[in-house]
C-alpha cells in the first residue's frame, strides 16, 4: 500500500514541481538578463491563475481555451510591467526592489477587490483516472505534467535555436558584448518579462486546477522560485527543471512520511545546503 502511495506521490510531486518550474523559469531568466529579482513575479503567476478562473468559472470557457488566452494576456501584462514600471528605474537597484514589490501588493489588492478573499479552484483539466499496472493515476495530473514538459521543451528550443532566443542568452552572459552586436537591451528586457509572465500564467492555471488558488498564493510561490534559482543555478533552464522536480517531490514524499510541517522546512534546508556547498547551483554559471 505504501508503494502505491509513493508512486502516486511521485506523480503529484512532479505535477506540483511542474508549476514551480513554470513560475521559476521566468524569475531565473529575468534575473539573468536584467539583473533584477522581479519581486512581483509570484503575483503575475497569481493573476494568470485568476484570469483562467475568470474565463472558465465566470465566462464559461473551456479550460483548454482559457489557458492559452491567459498566457497571451499575462504576457501582455508583462510587457506593460517592463515598459511602464521597470524601464524607468533601469540601473537603480533600490528602485527595482520598491517598484516590483509595490506592484505585487497592487496586484493582490486588485484581485481581492474583484474576486474576494478565499480559496478557489479552476475546473479540472480532465476527470477520471487511468490504470497502469494496477495503479490508478489521476488523468488531470498527467495532462498537467505533459503541458509543463511541452512548454519547457518549447522554451528550450526557442532559447537554443531562434535568433531572439540566442540574443537573450547572449544578453544574459555578456550584456556589453550583446549590445555591441546590435542587440537592443530594452527589447531583450521586454521579451524576457513577457515570456516569463506568460509561462508563469500557465503554471498558475495548472496549479489552480489541480490544487487551488487564492489571491495570496504569489508570495509562497515566489519563495519557491527563489529556491529554484539557488538550486538550479542562475539562468539555467535545465537547473530550474531539476530543482523544480526536487522541490515538488520533497513537498509530497516528505509529507507522506514525516508530515507536512517537516515537508515545508525541506526547501529551506535544501537552499541552505546549496548556498553553503554549491552557491552557483546545479547548472549555474560562475
Amino acid at each position, binding site marked *: 500500500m505504501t508503494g502505491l502511495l509513493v508512486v502516486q506521490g511521485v506523480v503529484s510531486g512532479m505535477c506540483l514541481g511542474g508549476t514551480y518550474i513554470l513560475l521559476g523559469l521566468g524569475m531565473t531568466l529575468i534575473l539573468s538578463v536584467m539583473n533584477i529579482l522581479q519581486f512581483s513575479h509570484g503575483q503575475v503567476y497569481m493573476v494568470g491563475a485568476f484570469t483562467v478562473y475568470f474565463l472558465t468559472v465566470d465566462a464559461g470557457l473551456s479550460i483548454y481555451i482559457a489557458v492559452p488566452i491567459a498566457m497571451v494576456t499575462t504576457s501582455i501584462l508583462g510587457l506593460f510591467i517592463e515598459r511602464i514600471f521597470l524601464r524607468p528605474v533601469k540601473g537603480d537597484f533600490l528602485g527595482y526592489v520598491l517598484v516590483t514589490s509595490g506592484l505585487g501588493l497592487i496586484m493582490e489588492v486588485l484581485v481581492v477587490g474583484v474576486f474576494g478573499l478565499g480559496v478557489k479552484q479552476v475546473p479540472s483539466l480532465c476527470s477520471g483516472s487511468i490504470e497502469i499496472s494496477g495503479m490508478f493515476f489521476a488523468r488531470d495530473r498527467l495532462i498537467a505534467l505533459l503541458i509543463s514538459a511541452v512548454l519547457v521543451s518549447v522554451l528550450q528550443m526557442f532559447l537554443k535555436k531562434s535568433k531572439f532566443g540566442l540574443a537573450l542568452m547572449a544578453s544574459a552572459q555578456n550584456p*556589453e558584448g550583446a*549590445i*555591441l552586436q546590435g542587440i537592443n537591451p530594452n527589447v531583450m528586457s521586454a521579451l524576457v518579462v513577457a515570456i516569463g509572465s506568460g509561462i508563469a500564467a500557465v503554471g498558475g492555471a495548472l496549479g489552480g486546477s489541480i490544487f487551488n488558488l487564492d489571491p495570496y498564493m504569489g508570495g509562497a510561490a515566489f519563495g519557491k522560485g527563489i529556491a529554484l534559482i539557488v538550486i538550479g543555478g542562475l539562468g539555467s533552464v535545465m537547473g530550474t527543471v531539476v530543482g523544480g522536480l526536487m522541490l515538488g517531490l520533497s513537498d509530497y514524499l516528505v509529507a507522506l512520511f514525516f508530515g507536512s510541517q517537516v515537508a515545508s522546512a525541506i526547501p529551506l534546508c535544501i537552499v541552505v545546503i546549496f548556498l553553503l556547498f554549491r552557491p552557483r547551483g546545479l547548472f549555474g*554559471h560562475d
Partner: protein
Amino acid sequence: MLLEIKNLIVHYDAAQVLYGISFDVEEGTIVTLLGNNGSGKSTTLRAISHLKKATSGEILFQGKRIDKELPQNIVRFGIGHVLEGKGLFPYMSVIENLTVGAYLRKDKKQVALDIEDIFAHFPRLMERRNQQARTLSGGEQQMLAIARSLLGKPKLLLLDEPSLGLSPSMVGEIGRIIRDINQQGVTVLLVEQNARLALNIAHKGFVFENGNIVLQGDAKDLIEDDKVRKAYVGR
C-alpha cells in the same frame, strides 16, 4: 576621414579621464593608441561605441556625428568593437557566438557563407565549432571575438588589447590576423599595451598620457622615438 574625434572629454563620475583629445583615422589604415594603463585609450574606444557617454566633444564617422547614437545602433554604421576581455558569450558555442555576431543581418544565406569563410580562415575555430567559448584558449577566444565582429561587416574595427595575456607566438598570430583584416579593406583602431606589436603593424600612432595625446606620428617614426622606445617598447 573615416573617423574624426574632436575635443573629446569623458568623466567617470567626478574623475576626468579624457581631457579634450582630438585625432583622425584615415580610411584603410591601422591606427594604434598607445599609453599606460589608465591613460584613457580604452575609454576612447568605449566613447566611440557609446558604451560610455562622453561629457562633451564630437565623434564623426564618415562625416556624420554618431556621438548621440545608442550603443546598439553603432554596429549599424559599420563599427565593430572587440572589448578588452573579448566580450564573448562564455556558455554559448563557437557557432552560436558567431551567429549572434550576425544578429542584425537579414541576408541569411550570405551569413552562412561568411561563417564558412571564417572557418576557412580560422581552422582552429572550425575544429571547436560546437565547444563552449569559455573552453577555448586565450588566443582562440581572441580569434573568435574578432571573427564575430567581422560578421557585422564593419568598416572600422575597434580592438581593445587583443594581445593581452597571450603567448608570444599567439601575439604574432593575432598581429598577422589584424594585418590581413586591414588588407581586406577594414580600417583598424588598435589599443595596445604591446607597443612593439602595435607599431609594427600600424600606419599611425597616438601616445596617450593621463587623458591627453602627448605624441603622434607615423608608426615607423614613433618606433624610432627615444621616449617611446624607453617607455613602451622596453628597449
